[in-house]
């Protein structure tokens, strides 16, 4: 049986007792009811996946759709997605990197073999507002989808997968925000010819497929093949209803909205709560028009909870790819931490320094790997990069501002970084908080281990 969202849910139930939580009462996602439930669970430290049996449509009408949220909130769920028993961060990095290297050619199947074709709604009768689309945070410009968008390279065979926030506008239109990466590059090329670009809006599949959308791979690589590597089997694809073989869409997806990004058209989009946990402003974004919706019977729509932990963890492949890039440059790198560094654009590198200058080179590799990284802290390998107290201890005790801090100017920033003063350009910071090798350095204060072993606290202090 091919892997899909339903097999992922079964694996989740088998591996993590009590997950997913099930909500059988009707909820109105477009009226903040789903986000209120998710937020309160997160506040209480309950990061379970949540399955909503009866979410209503945007128009608050009963719908046939179901809704899955919080699919990325813990490493344990990432481990389920990647079929890994261990959920240690470095183990997850290594498993992700190994799987993503195992590129697998896609398998084209007939529509009759594609579950996503069980129900086909054509342009005249479709209404995107029938879907259970969430409003995530106050001030959101409208209900927002958080899909994986699939697109075929213009004049090529390669497919790109990417996360793109999409705001509901009306029955046939969504606003789509594109960062200046591969999908944006595709559209630049197509729009220059005054043409529209067909895309598939995938709203649910096995989480290994969904994670392929965050993969940092060169533009000449096929991300459908990367998805196959992560799934551990070829991604099954099927010709789309609206575009035939011009656009192949995942056959085992729960829901696909087929349509196109229109040339020479823009629309108002936002505000929207981003992974920075800040509300990004209303802006101009691109316009998508739907041509068909296909889905399975009783489809399960997946939504990432914007500006919350779920949103952050969906970026895990980026963190893994940065780890790979940094380790390729400096083999002494032991671990990195971005998602739990405490800052949306902070990265901490923990490494065994062999020569002076290595921390700087490792940091530059991280900065060049992704524009999500703005500030890099490098610490010695005896410190946990996820422990912010450890990191600040190193900055405080191993760092001199005039020689160990470097500011880089005029580098491409992350467009969602509200501190950028120019549209796309900003600065970077590297703090080398490793101990120097060129002079003796004080050791960390510690007790003799044999003394600690000899003393049992209970023998001296009664509780």
């Amino acid at each position: 049986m091919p892997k899909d969202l339903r097999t992922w849910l079964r694996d989740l139930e088998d591996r993590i007792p009590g997950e997913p939580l099930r909500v059988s009462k009707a909820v109105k996602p477009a009226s903040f009811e789903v986000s209120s439930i998710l937020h309160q669970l997160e506040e209480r430290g309950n990061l379970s996946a949540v399955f909503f049996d009866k979410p209503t449509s945007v128009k608050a009408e009963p719908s046939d759709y179901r809704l899955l949220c919080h699919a990325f909130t813990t490493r344990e769920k990432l481990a389920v997605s990647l079929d890994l028993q261990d959920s240690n961060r470095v183990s997850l990095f290594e498993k992700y990197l190994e799987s993503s290297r195992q590129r697998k050619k896609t398998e084209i199947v007939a529509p009759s073999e594609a579950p996503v074709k069980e129900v086909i709604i054509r342009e005249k009768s479709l209404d995107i507002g029938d879907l259970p689309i969430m409003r995530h945070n106050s001030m959101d410009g409208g209900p927002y989808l958080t899909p994986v968008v699939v697109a075929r390279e213009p004049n090529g065979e390669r497919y790109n997968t990417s996360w793109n926030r999409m705001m509901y506008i009306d029955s046939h239109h969504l606003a789509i925000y594109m960062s200046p990466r591969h999908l944006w590059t595709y559209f630049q090329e197509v729009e220059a010819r005054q043409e529209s670009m067909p895309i598939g809006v995938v709203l649910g599949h096995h989480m290994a497929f969904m994670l392929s959308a965050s993969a940092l791979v060169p533009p000449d690589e096929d991300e459908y093949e990367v998805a196959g590597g992560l799934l551990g089997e070829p991604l099954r694809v099927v010709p789309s209803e609206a575009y035939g073989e011009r656009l192949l869409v995942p056959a085992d997806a729960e829901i696909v909205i087929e349509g196109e990004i229109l040339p020479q058209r823009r629309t108002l989009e936002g505000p929207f709560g981003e992974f920075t946990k800040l509300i990004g402003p209303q802006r101009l974004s691109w316009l998508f028009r739907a041509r068909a919706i296909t889905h399975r019977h009783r489809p399960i729509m997946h939504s990432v909870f914007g500006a919350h932990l779920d949103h952050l963890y969906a970026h895990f492949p980026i963190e893994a790819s940065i780890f790979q890039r940094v380790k390729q440059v400096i083999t002494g790198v032991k671990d990195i931490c971005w998602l739990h560094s405490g800052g949306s654009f902070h990265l901490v590198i923990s490494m065994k320094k062999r020569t002076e200058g290595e921390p700087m080179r490792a940091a530059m590799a991280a900065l060049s790997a992704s524009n999500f990284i703005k500030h890099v802290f490098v610490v010695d390998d005896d410190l946990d990069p996820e422990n912010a107290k450890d990191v600040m201890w190193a900055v405080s005790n191993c760092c001199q501002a005039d020689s160990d801090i470097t500011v880089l100017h005029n580098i491409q920033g992350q467009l969602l970084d509200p501190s950028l003063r120019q549209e796309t350009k900003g600065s970077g910071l590297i703090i080398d908080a490793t101990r120097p090798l060129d002079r003796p350095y004080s050791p960390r204060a510690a007790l003799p281990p044999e003394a600690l072993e000899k003393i049992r606290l209970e023998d001296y202090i009664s509780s």
Partner: protein
Amino acid sequence: MKIHYVNCPQCNKSFHCDANLLGLDIPLHCPYCDLYFEPEERKGEQLPKGTAFMGLSRIDRKILYLPVQEKKRPTKV
């Protein structure tokens, strides 16, 4: 990105937008009451050549898509 806070003339609630939008001949959309309105202040920097990121040589009302129902009612308030 420079942002600018605006108040909706209908519900009087505040939200923020890309400051460049104020320099363009386009309405804003209130996320609270769904009104499309012309901002009172057009303080933003005019971008006559559009922006490289948006990929357009010119940005004006003609390229802007508004929801179907909005086309039927005036955007001025």
